[in-house]
């Protein structure tokens, strides 16, 4: 099946073309939905079959390149349209097509009766197409094609309801913001590619990485490459300073938030760093930067998440925060732990978003959790799956998030420092708190909504994907059971990915030098922290709700700061957006262009005009005057000739 891996790219493209071109004529939602979902479903099967085929092969034969055609060639550059199937890309492909399929199915229910149902499915398929190019690309340029392609789909889907208002603006403003901020990241990514080409004379992954393995380590070049690439990652994966687009991306329909802005696209930056692990491992300074940026992002996003009242906003900041964890993992060289968290996060965060969608659906587009409450009895399936997801993200022992997050924290401690670990734990604590604040305010307590709404459980087409994701959120962690528990087999997930990261790890010299006792101790601390804050949330939001309002009054300045997300948007607006716009209009256009350049041109023209007008006066029409001028001229000429002898 590996040789047919291009089907996983081609099928969604076909789905996009069918629904995109004929969708408005088909009209039947079922047919459109089935076309959209089945193309992704079959892609998943192809990926799964390829995965099993790889399992049956010896480790050194698991890497396959499937070449399609020559894309770009000029001078020494020769970019092939080719796909690379290896341990890393197949994991990502399974996540994207698997979770993607479930979200497609869910959307059939969620988008029911939308006037542009067909357009939605066309865009979703196009997204899967682009995302698969990103993952499977055999070189930086195909990856970049997918990279920008998912950005485009994100743009189209955030602005899907283009005539709706969103917060202070419109959904299309949010969409544009997402695209432009991503482009800033892409700018960095492009420069990274150029420098790679300059250094390694190639943009093909295998060529570049094998040369990187042999190259003597010259820190600055690697440092610049890693820095440029990381700038790209901060854009796509919403890290400081480019995270501002992701919370606004919630303007899109909720399945989009689940698929693109939680489970798949936003993890592209993590994937890219993992893919280029050898380059990053050769730039230790940038690795530190990544770890710090990741941790800071995780921390600050979590603090914002504590006070938000829009259910999707909470989840959005939670996503930013979790992505921060993944970058923390990358930064400390725990590449496979980071990818592991990509996977578990895809399960539980997609579940959280779909659950939120189910709630929003039931509450007729109300997104403010202050107007929820007591929903437990109306929507039991949504409730139970949501609890599972919340437990998973909080790191409840035995669930998927527990294993992946703890592995990251353990690595932060073992290969980073106690400080990294401590801030990580603090963040985990806040995560558990805001998730359960959300959960209790939504499902427990008094019903704070008008009863004309008649909340009800969502149809099976929506709840079945929830249940499947809930199962995955529970069991997904066991493939990455840490060696402490699994004994001699070691961590399965880690050993599956180890051929990909081995050279980077050699360069980093990452060896487990700490004992099992320490690992278990740290794990217990984080479990205690998670359980403690779940209880705290339970106590505050179901028993003593006045504590919350009292605290927010007491620390009103801090509360406002968090509620307004540290005013980052406002600061960017005032320091970058406005000056650029005003400067371009008032100075560049009105002054430089119209006054200075055009003024010079028109000035030259009018100067000629005036000179001509002056000279014209000599054409009086009187013969005597001409004769006189002629005499003067001859006199001057004679004088000149005589003098020059």
């Amino acid at each position, binding site marked *: 099946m590996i040789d047919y891996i291009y089907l996983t790219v081609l099928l969604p493209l076909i789905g996009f073309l069918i629904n995109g071109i004929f969708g408005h004529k088909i009209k039947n939602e079922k047919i459109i939905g089935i076309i959209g979902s089945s193309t992704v479903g079959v892609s998943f099967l192809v990926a799964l079959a390829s995965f099993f085929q790889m399992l049956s092969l010896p480790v050194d034969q698991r890497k396959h390149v499937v070449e399609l*055609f*020559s*894309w*770009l*060639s*000029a*001078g*020494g*550059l020769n970019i092939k349209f080719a796909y690379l199937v290896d341990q890393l890309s197949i994991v990502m492909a399974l996540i994207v097509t698997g979770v993607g399929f479930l979200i497609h199915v869910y959307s059939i229910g969620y988008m029911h009766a939308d006037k542009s149902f067909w357009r939605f499915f066309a865009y979703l398929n196009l997204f899967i197409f682009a995302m698969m190019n990103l993952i499977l690309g055999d070189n930086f*340029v195909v990856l*970049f*094609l997918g*990279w*920008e*392609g998912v950005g*485009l789909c994100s*743009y189209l889907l955030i*602005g899907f309801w*283009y*005539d709706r208002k969103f917060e202070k603006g*419109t*959904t*299309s*403003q949010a*969409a*544009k913001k997402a*695209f*432009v901020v991503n*482009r*800033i990241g*892409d*700018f960095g990514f*492009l*420069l990274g*590619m*150029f*420098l790679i*080409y*300059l250094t390694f004379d190639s943009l093909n992954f295998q060529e570049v990485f094998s040369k990187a393995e042999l190259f003597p380590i010259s820190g600055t070049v690697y440092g610049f490459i890693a820095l440029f690439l990381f700038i790209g990652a901060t854009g796509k994966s919403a890290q400081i300073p480019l995270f501002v687009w992701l919370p606004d991306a919630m303007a899109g329909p909720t399945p989009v938030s689940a698929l693109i802005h939680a489970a798949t696209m936003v993890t592209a930056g993590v994937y890219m760093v993992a893919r280029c692990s050898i380059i990053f491992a050769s730039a230790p300074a940038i690795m530190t930067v990544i770890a710090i940026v990741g941790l800071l992002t995780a921390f600050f996003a979590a603090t914002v998440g504590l006070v938000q009242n829009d259910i999707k906003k909470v989840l959005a900041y939670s996503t930013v925060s979790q992505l921060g964890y993944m970058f923390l993992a990358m930064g400390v060289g725990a590449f496979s732990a980071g990818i592991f968290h990509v996977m578990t996060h895809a399960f539980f965060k997609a579940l959280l978003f779909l659950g939120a969608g189910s709630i929003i659906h039931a509450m007729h587009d109300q997104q403010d959790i202050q107007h929820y409450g007591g929903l437990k009895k109306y929507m039991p399936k949504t409730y139970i799956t949501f609890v599972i997801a919340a437990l998973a993200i909080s790191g409840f022992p035995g669930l998927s998030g527990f294993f992946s997050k703890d592995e990251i924290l353990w690595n932060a401690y073992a290969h980073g420092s106690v400080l990294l670990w401590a801030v990580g734990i603090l963040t985990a604590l806040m995560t558990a708190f805001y998730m359960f604040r959300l959960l209790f305010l939504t499902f427990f307590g008094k019903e704070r909504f008008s009863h004309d709404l008649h909340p009800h459980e969502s149809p099976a087409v929506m709840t079945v994907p929830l249940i499947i994701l809930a199962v995955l959120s529970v069991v997904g962690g066991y493939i990455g059971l840490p060696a402490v528990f699994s004994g001699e087999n070691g961590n399965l997930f880690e050993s599956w990915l180890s051929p990909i990261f081995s050279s980077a790890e050699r360069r980093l010299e990452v060896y487990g030098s700490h004992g099992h006792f320490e690992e278990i101790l740290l794990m217990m601390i984080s479990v205690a922290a998670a359980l403690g804050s779940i209880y705290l949330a339970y106590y505050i939001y179901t028993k003593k709700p006045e504590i919350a309002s009292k605290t927010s009054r007491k620390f009103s300045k801090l509360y406002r700061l968090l509620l307004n997300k540290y005013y980052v948007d406002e600061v960017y607006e005032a320091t970058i957006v406005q000056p*650029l*716009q005003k*400067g*371009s*209009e008032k100075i*560049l*256009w009105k002054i*430089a*262009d119209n006054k200075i*350049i*055009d003024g010079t*041109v028109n000035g030259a*023209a009018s100067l000629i005009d005036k000179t001509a007008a002056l000279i014209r006066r000599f054409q009086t029409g009187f013969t005597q005057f001409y004769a006189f001028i002629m005499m003067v001229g001859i006199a001057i000429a004679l004088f000149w000739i005589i003098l020059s002898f």
Partner: protein
Amino acid sequence: MYMENNFLLTYLLLIPLLGSLLLLFINKEKESLIRWAGFGIALLAFILSLVIYLRFDPGQSGFQFVNKITWISKINVSYHVGIDGISILLILLTTFLTPITLFSSWKSIKKKVKEFTFFMLLLEVGMIGVFVSLDLFLFYVFWEAMLIPMYFIIGIWGGEQRIYASVKFFIYTMFGSLLMLVSIIWLGVYAASFTGTFTTNLLDLYKIGPGVPHQIQVFMFLSFFISFAIKVPLFPFHTWLPDAHVQAPTAGSVILAGVLLKMGTYGIIRFCLPLFPQSATEFAPVISVLAIIGIIYGALVAMVQKDMKKLVAYSSVSHLGFVVLGIFAMTTEAVQGSVIQMVNHGLSTGALFLLVGMIYDRTHTREISNYGGIAKIIPLFSFALMFASLSSMGLPGLNGFVGEFLILLGSFKSPVLNSWAYTIFAASGVIFAAVYLLWMYQRVVFGEVKHQNLFSLKDLEKREIAILIPIFIFILWIGIYPGTFLKLSEKSTNTVIQQVLVNPNTDVKVAKQ
């Protein structure tokens, strides 16, 4: 395939020339006949150019389909035409866009149809002539001759300030060309001092130009270059462009942006670089800085425009900045990128002008603020505008990316520029392109419908779809399989680079190319 006398190119010139004369015999009342005849003639020229393309051998360096006939024997001037891999692309672009623009004017041009078609065909003769000339004198004749029909097209069928715009266009260009004429004669005289005969034969001058003493070479280079820079237009010679574009009828804008601007960049590749390699490399950093200023400046000024057409016009300043940067980076990647980007810009900006024209025909306004929320009223138009915008902002998979990527990649490793800074600044244009295009798109297409009259808008009709589809096919084609086009020009591009860099006077340390 090199034949001393191959008449195909001459036929290609004669078709629109004789065609335009033929039109004069048709009664001007028969407008539909005139339109069809004009379109047919242009289409015939396109078919012939396809024949030439099929017979063209990309493996050969040097000029093909050469036709040389002595013209003014006293000063050794001949009618000497021929093409290489660079000019064939631009000829294909010209003969492709001309029938499209004629077809697009079906409804928008209502007065003096006969004269309009006549001038458009004459313009085509001039444009093809510029791209095929291998004699500087002949080149100069076409270069100037082409101004006249364009002057009339803006001046007669243009907007309210058409006279100001057309005169500005004319004078700006004339100023440049006069300098060039002086240098052409000087170069010929200089050749005479060597060989004893005055010549304007480009192939002979290729051997002589690089040997011109430094001080004179600088002057000659600059006088050629300024003439071309005005045409491109390179910052700060660009202010004729927004006026000319806004005032010109749609067909004029499309040809202006699609082909005329390329004559500037083509001229640089064909004449400035190989004739004066030493000066070209010396001036490369300065010119690249101007190009980069143009990229950023054009994008920023485009961002704040209130008129859609002006926005697209300023975006051309930005895009052509990329092309100039690529040319002066003088690596195969970059120059190849520039060549393909010339074609790309013709397609995507051409499509944008066509689309702006199509909606202008319906509403008679180009003010962005007069629109909003048209996505649900005219979805096809909205889709087409999105597609063209994406192409213009260089989305991978579409044509614009191929050109920009190669230019930036090539300039990054350029030994002539020898600094990352150029590329870093230039690449920021990629961000701004997304800003100005998406911002315009958001205000025009998305949001709520602000003006009641927009509700009665009609979506694209079949004729308009037929105009756009061929352009969109090429946008995709170049994006996905650019090899078809890159292969055509690779040999010729390398020849030009060799002419510049493998030159004893050129002070560039190039290890490998």
